[in-house]
């Protein structure tokens, strides 16, 4: 994955630990330098190892950590080079979800080694959205759940999210709370 993920991890870690402790985590994760460059590519093993180190240091179960990291990722990306394209993703939550593949396609054209996931809005109405998520990576559904929850908040939506494996993909059922709920 690209270094932006590592930079977001640093943001998350520094809420609880010191810069020196973060440097120590990086060193233990096999990083030769004390900083991560946003557009530098790191192997998935390196990124996953760093996530694992941060989760352990923050004393969070993996699923809980990934959800929290997904939530933070939206804020982090919004403040980064992705911010403008995030703003262009749509005026409402469904449009945003429908734009995700196009957004990832553009990101992929600028980050040729990025292995981007795919999102398909299978159905959407006022009460629920069904989303299909496909990725070559396993175990990141909680991370996506965190991203979806934070994205819903961007559009002032209160949602409840469940996910389950389905036909080699992951199905997300997003229950939308109406104004009276």
């Amino acid at each position, binding site marked *: 994955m690209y270094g932006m993920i590592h930079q977001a991890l640093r943001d998350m870690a520094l809420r609880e630990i010191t810069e020196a402790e973060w440097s120590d985590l990086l060193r233990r994760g096999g990083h030769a330098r004390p900083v991560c460059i946003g557009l530098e590519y790191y192997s998935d093993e390196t990124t996953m190892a760093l996530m694992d180190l941060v989760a352990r240091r923050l004393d969070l179960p993996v699923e809980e950590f990934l959800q929290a990291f997904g939530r933070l990722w939206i804020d982090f990306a919004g403040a980064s080079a992705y911010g403008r394209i995030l703003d262009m*993703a749509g005026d409402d939550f469904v449009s945003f979800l429908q734009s995700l593949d196009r957004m990832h*396609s*553009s990101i992929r*054209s*600028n980050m040729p080694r990025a292995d981007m996931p795919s999102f398909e809005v299978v159905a959407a109405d006022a009460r629920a959205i069904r989303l299909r998520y496909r990725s070559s990576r396993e175990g990141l559904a909680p991370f996506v759940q965190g991203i979806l929850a934070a994205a819903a908040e961007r559009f002032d939506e209160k949602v409840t999210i469940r996910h389950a494996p389905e036909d080699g993909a992951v199905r997300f059922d997003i229950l939308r709370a109406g104004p009276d709920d």
Partner: protein
Amino acid sequence: MIEGGPFPQATPAEGLELSPEELSTLFPAHLVLGADGVIIDAGPSLRRQCGPDLLGRCFFDCVTLERPAGVGCMDGLRAHRRALILRLEGEQSLRLRGLLLDRGERLWLMLGHIPDLQAEAGRQPLQIADFSPTDGTLDMMLAAEMRSGMLAETRALATALEEQRNKAEAANRAKSAFLTTMSHEIRTPMNAVLGVANILADTELTDEQRDWLDVMTASGHSLMELLNNILDLSKIEAGLMELRPEPFDLRELARSVHGLFAPAAAMKDIRMTLDFDLEGSVYVGDSLRVRQVLSNLVGNATKFTEAGQIAITIRDRVEEGRRLVELSVKDTGIGISAEAISRLFRAFTQADSSTTRRYGGTGLGLSISKSLVEQMGGDIRVQSRVGRGSTFTALIPLAMTEQADAVRPVPAAVPDPGGPLHALIVEDNATNRLILSHYLRRMGHSYDAANNGQQAIALWEEQEYDVIIMDIEMPVLDGLVATRELRRRERALGRRYTPIIALSADAMMQKRETALSVGMDSYLTKPVSLEEIEERIRTICAETSRQASG
């Protein structure tokens, strides 16, 4: 790749009919004009951006054509049949580009957005869905954002680096200041320790007492050597080590170093030889630092050799147009393993910790020597075999000169100034005054003593002195101000010139230069021995006397 001739004619798009959804997806910003120029249809992007009022309006009323410029009717558009660039005015001003398709009654304008990359993020009206999936504009927008992101990241990194560098420099300055202060604070009591040991050595002592005194003196000198090394290392690390090149006699320098260590080697039955293969004698370089390097190499060889011989060879040769002087020291000592050689030149590192326990030392000498040689543009190399011995070779670029006259002579025997002198000791530390008093008595001189510069000037007003030995850091009036004032009064009153020897605990070169610049004639660093002060008084007085008579 098609072989054997021209490309086949493009297949006509027969059967390629787009559904409204496909048309909207592929050309979300298209416009359809009727024969009268009225907009009769628009893609979802333009409908969303411009509102429902767009349909039914005359194209030429709501559009500014940038290309083709000046066209204001349908015939003009038809005649153009080329690329279009236009600005569509509505709720949002949209810049578009595309192609015109003439389909009889209708003109189809297949357009795509030209985003304003300079617009602030919040003011950019376009969304991802406004772009065709076949349009790379979105990628370019993201690329532009990523470039600016990278620039911001680079700036942040540069700022962080600068802050870290500033912090490191501040820490380094603090360290240097600490070392200078520490040096000063240690030198003052060490002057007392070594001075009193010197005085004691002149008294009646039993053999056992003399042995203890020798241990005390040797330990004091070791401590001073360590202090000097730490100061040197500090200066090197802070980039403050300045070289002072001047012509010097290399043969004389090497003989002097040989003479210094040969007795210690002889006591271990080690034969120390000195050979020259030099084209000249006088070279230009910082003789003090060349001596320091050679002394370090010879000193190490003496320390780590138990039997056999130590061969010092001084050669020179011309390599790539510059003259290289080679200081080679070969011993038959304990030798160094290949693994230990790799860390040999690091500060505070010896071959192994047992070396420190057995032979003593801090491991600073080689590190300092290497830094000095590198600063002179050279290098130090080592070849060694455990149990067989080592050869250390310092290669230093030194220009040869024929200007023998330029070499500062080192007087072998300084002439006696001619009888007892009357000296003035200016020193605020009572112990140091006591020691200097003893030294002067031993030399057969008389003296007065002052606690500070103000008292010194008062005493000088009353009588002539042959020499003044002046501390620098003193309360009331320090040595620098007092010297400047004495020199001023000498000139104003027409009094004879009194040589002044600075005696300071500050070993930094800068202080020495300041002292000489205010009118002091010489500078000695504490601790000072009887021999040093005697030699310096002789030299300075002889020089003053020669100048006065000449």
